[in-house]
């Protein structure tokens, strides 16, 4: 090899080694970013993504939805759940009048200064369900999947058709390939684990609360919402889906009543910082021009 070739080879190996190291680095990054959820999901079913009006940088709470959602929470959830960080009076923040708030509070045997506490005491709940229903003030922030999860839970119960399917499939105590496919698509169960599927179907047929999205599928909360369960006064259709959307919107607000304040302040802070930083960059260029 002559000198030229040595230099070339050297340059080539240098580039190649740098390139391979860089590729390795980005491959590792990719692994870290892509794999966590997909590969090792612990039995949880992928949650359908929802569009929430309050999501994103410029997202806003829809006051009408909040009002409806508060009504759903009070009438359909508070039998069992509390929202201890919210007081009835705070509901005025999205459009309830003082009189309406008073009426809502009185319907629960409370005054407007009281927190949204369930009438059910912890011991009674424990006797009835085996667990104390969790406080809902922070529920959307306290589960992976956030609002999407809560919405999925509320809408993920087995339908009458699903129950009929469970009974039908388990009638002969075994699951054919055909049936496995049907069950997998209807209930989101893994068709590769037939013994697990059989157990789930048996428990469904025995009347336990199946939920597609709850990790482990069975939990103590009986289906809380159904079509028409709460009577709306603003003419909105009160389907189960709509009730769930509204109550989740309300729960998201309850989890962080300062969210809109945060987002609106954020726009101002970021705009200010952008301008300031661009100016500092210009000054930096100017000063450093003397050195370069």
């Amino acid at each position, binding site marked *: 090899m002559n000198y030229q070739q040595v230099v070339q080879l050297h340059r080539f190996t240098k580039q190649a080694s740098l390139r391979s190291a860089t590729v390795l680095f980005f491959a590792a990054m990719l692994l870290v970013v892509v794999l966590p959820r997909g590969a090792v999901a612990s039995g949880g079913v992928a949650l359908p993504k929802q569009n929430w009006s309050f999501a994103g940088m410029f997202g806003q709470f829809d006051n009408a939805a909040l009002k409806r959602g508060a009504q759903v929470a009070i009438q359909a959830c508070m039998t069992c759940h509390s929202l201890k960080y919210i007081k009835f009076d705070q509901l005025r923040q999205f459009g309830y009048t003082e009189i309406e708030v008073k009426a809502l509070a009185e319907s629960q045997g409370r005054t407007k200064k009281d927190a949204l506490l369930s009438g059910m005491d912890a011991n009674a709940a424990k006797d009835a369900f085996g667990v104390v229903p969790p406080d809902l003030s922070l529920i959307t922030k306290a589960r992976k999947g956030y609002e999407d999860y809560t919405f999925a839970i509320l809408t993920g119960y087995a339908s009458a058709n699903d129950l009929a399917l469970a009974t039908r499939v388990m009638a002969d105590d075994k699951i054919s390939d055909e049936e496995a496919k049907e069950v997998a698509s209807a209930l989101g169960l893994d068709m590769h684990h037939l013994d697990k599927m059989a157990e789930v179907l048996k428990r469904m047929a025995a009347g336990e609360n199946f939920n597609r999205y709850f990790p482990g599928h069975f939990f103590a909360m009986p289906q809380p919402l159904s079509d028409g369960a709460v009577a709306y006064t603003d003419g909105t259709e009160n389907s189960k889906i709509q009730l769930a959307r509204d109550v989740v919107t309300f729960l998201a607000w309850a989890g962080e009543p300062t969210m809109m304040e945060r987002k609106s302040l954020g726009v101002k802070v*970021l705009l200010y910082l952008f301008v300031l*930083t661009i100016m500092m960059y210009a000054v930096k260029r100017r000063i450093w021009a003397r050195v370069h």
Partner: protein
Amino acid sequence: MSKIMEWVDARLPVTELLKSQATEYPTPKNLNYWWNFGSLALFVLIIMIASGLFLAMHYKADANQSFDVVEHIMRDVNFGWLLRYMHANGASFFFMVVYIHILRGMYYGSYRKPREILWWFGIILFFMMMATAFMGYVLPWGQMSYWGAAVITNLMSAIPVVGEDLVVWIWGGFSVGDPTLNRFFALHFLLPLVIFGVVILHLWALHAVHSNNPVGIDLHDEKDSIPFHPYYTIKDLYGMGVFLIIFCAFVFYAPNFFLEPDNYIPANPMQTPPHIVPEWYFLPFYAILRSIDFLGSFSKLAGVIAMGGAIAILFILPFLDRSPVRSFRYRPLSKQLFWMFVADCFVLGWVGYNPADAAIFEGALPLIVIGRTCTALYFSYFFLLWVITAFDIEKHTPVPKSI
């Protein structure tokens, strides 16, 4: 004004100190943007101390109240949500900045002679930061606070003879509880101020030997250095602007990105969460801890030693690296090792994030195997760096004579 300064200077030479250590302090003119991360770290420390101080005015350390009090700060205190989100995200950003700062030092050989003491103060700072962040995370008293504290303090029980008693002493009882929370708050308040003191030592050591630079050679020529002010004051300010934009984007628009949902569930000693994960910045070390599981009853102790050793080994890095050249720019093999090390840390982090018994490829490859391999690779970096430099295996490319 100048009269007053004269009077002061005659008694305490403030002007001289500012001149020699700040405004006219000579700095290499070729520092790149990776050199911004030191001043950024100090900036984040100040953000943490300021936001922490105001949080502490509202916070109560009490097993029955802390969770509610943090929610009270979020909901009722004016801009309390801002304080808390700044503080919680600040911890994550602090680690990001410091990790980059450390890796910068490793890449450009800033730990090499004559900067060993400077480097050691840095590692001490890193240890203290980890302790501070760990105890801070306990304060909101959520499920992860509680169980994270339980898992990590429990590690002390691996220490032979005194371990069990030590854990009880740390807890102030027979489990993590109210006394633990109280002392963690006291220490969490104190440690950042100690950190501040060590930062001053760190800077003292820096100013005694001056900054390294991307070329990694000592400066001989007067014209190679420029006064800190205005060149690096403006460059650092610009860096802080960029930092603040990214930081505020998280604080205002994704404040829970780095927080674990489980920590919005109040601590419950009777109910272990299905999957206990530390904060992301501990994950690589957590993975190293868990990867030592093959030594029977010694596994726990060995894991703890490996975890501590993973950081402590940085102390001897100045003596392991024997290359005649500091900067990895001119060291092809070291450079390659370095990037593998960085990649390895990411993979370790990912392993630490997942449950210990998880596997990929349909169960064919248990994560614990990846964890063990990556732990070996982690320590191999230090060993191989020594091998290639001590035995002259690495041929460095030409190093410029001046910058």
